């Protein structure tokens, strides 16, 4: 019986072989590479050939003058993106649900999803152009109403705001799908009952639509918790410059500069390990919360 079962399962195992191999080599094997966070790593000596220095790299990182600034930037930018990235799609989904005109509704949806599919290389190029202090359309508009030009990408005052708003701009449409789906799943008879009770549209939205979305909102909020150290490498890398390192440098861009440009592999990997570890803990907590609060499972 057991043999028979094993034989029946064999094709399923075979199907998984290529995928498992690729993950083993390109996802699991690099995790072994974390050992170089504890070494004075010299590439020629191989993974285990360099001198072990314990937490030396970590101590070095803690003494770096900008590390707290960078950590603060990362958490601030990421948290603001998470907060606004939740609030805006919830609001837009509720408002979009009120549209009765199907063609306009579909048109609005199509357009607001669009930026999600363009890369930060493209959108970075667009932002750099429209935000340019001399020739950008935004500053031309500001000048037209009598305001001075703002060097959005070159000023530490404005740069984080640009990062946060442009990220929300890129992604809110896509998140709206999930919240719209939640609204669609609400039992229509609840609205009928509310109408019989004399509830107007505002009250319906407040007492039925929003509570109906709560499980999905809780789910999205808890799942985004794991991203507190992910402030968006692609975006920052394509928009920043040395003049805004002070307000815009995040852990990932710092790792890139230290690791690949300065070739301090051990130090960069130590920061990377810290980031991976904290993210892992946060994601585990958030999955646990999502499971307890709204019975979410990944599959």
């Amino acid at each position, binding site marked *: 019986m057991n043999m028979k079962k094993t034989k029946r399962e064999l094709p399923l195992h075979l*199907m998984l072989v290529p995928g498992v191999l690729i993950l083993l080599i390109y996802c699991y094997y690099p995790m072994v590479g*974390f050992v170089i966070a504890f070494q004075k790593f010299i590439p020629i000596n191989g993974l285990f050939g360099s001198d072990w220095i314990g937490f030396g790299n970590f101590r070095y990182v803690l003494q770096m003058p900008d590390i707290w600034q960078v950590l603060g930037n990362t958490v601030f930018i990421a948290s603001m993106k998470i907060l606004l990235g939740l609030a805006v799609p919830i609001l837009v989904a509720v408002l979009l649900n009120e*549209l009765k*005109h199907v063609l306009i509704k579909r048109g609005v949806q199509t357009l*607001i999803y669009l930026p999600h599919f*363009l890369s930060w290389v*493209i959108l970075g190029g667009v932002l750099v152009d429209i935000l340019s202090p001399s020739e950008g359309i935004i500053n*031309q508009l500001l000048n037209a109403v009598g305001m001075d030009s703002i060097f959005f990408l070159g000023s530490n005052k404005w740069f984080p705001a640009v990062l946060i708003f442009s990220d929300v701009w890129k992604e809110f449409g896509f998140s709206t799908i999930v919240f719209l789906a939640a609204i669609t799943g609400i039992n229509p008879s609840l609205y009928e009952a509310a109408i019989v009770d004399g509830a107007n549209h505002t009250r319906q939205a407040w007492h039925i639509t929003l509570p109906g979305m709560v499980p999905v909102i809780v789910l999205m909020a808890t799942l985004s918790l794991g991203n507190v150290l992910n402030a968006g490498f692609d975006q920052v890398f394509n928009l920043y410059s040395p003049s805004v390192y002070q307000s815009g440098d995040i852990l990932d861009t710092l790792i890139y500069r230290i690791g690949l440009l300065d070739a301090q592999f051990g130090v*960069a990997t130590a920061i990377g390990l810290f980031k991976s570890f904290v993210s892992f803990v946060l994601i585990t907590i958030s999955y646990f919360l999502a499971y307890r609060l709204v019975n979410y499972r990944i599959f």
Partner: protein
Amino acid sequence: MQHRMSFGRKVFVAGNYAFLVALSLLCLLPLIQVLSISFSSSAAASAGLVKLLPVDLTLSSYKYILQKQEFISSFGITLQRLVLGFVINMGLSLLCAYPLSKERKDLRIRSYYAWFFVFTILFSGGLIPTYMVISMTGLIDTIWALVIPSAVSVFNVILLLNFFRGLPKEIEESAFMDGAGHWLVLRKMYVPMSYPVLATVSLFTMVFHWNAWFDGLIYMNFPKNYPLSTYLQLLVINSNPMKMDPKNLAGILEISERTTRAAQIFLGALPILIVYPFLQKFFVKGIVLGSVKG
């Protein structure tokens, strides 16, 4: 209830239409502005005359770009990457999603496999160790560095397997009764029944490969091996005069003035703008079925 709209309600409805239409224009206008700049003469562009529509309509920036050897060759690399990446990604995603969509009684160690896959989203080796593994396996400066490490997208696998789980079990069972095996069932039943989610995952895969630029930047030592997005990244972002050292500025300004940059941005976005309208009606369905259960 529609026939008794109060005044306040009318104001809200009108305001709501206006707000949402404005919001969607906000997503489109920045792109249109850059598009218009690309079709304008450089004199008009640098004088800041281009608002929403092109001024002195001309195709000269496009002509200039399309005859550049680097542009053509990086476009070739991207096409290669798209074809290889698409076939490998979709093939592996199907092969992984099918067994993982089975229940414990059909695949006893299913949950171990599942955690093996999911763990890679939770924890990753980070930039430096990943780079070293890719270099150790000899992929540096080959097209395979761009398609093999990302060949299994766990996110896509989850979308697919959630969809597979919603398919009726009876059809599959009757096929097994008739003597069909798993391979046949996957090919002849699951794939044909899964068009909405396959369209979604296809779109994601193509967009991913088209947009990816960072792997090209770090795994390719020679600019001739750069895919289009990496080439654009260097040209549009890194050579942007606003971010340059003033002493390098003079030389750069000649090769990348504003209209050329705009034209390259637009060419980089064009394929996505073309496929997007056809596939977007699928992905709403595919995403919703795949990710939001119940």
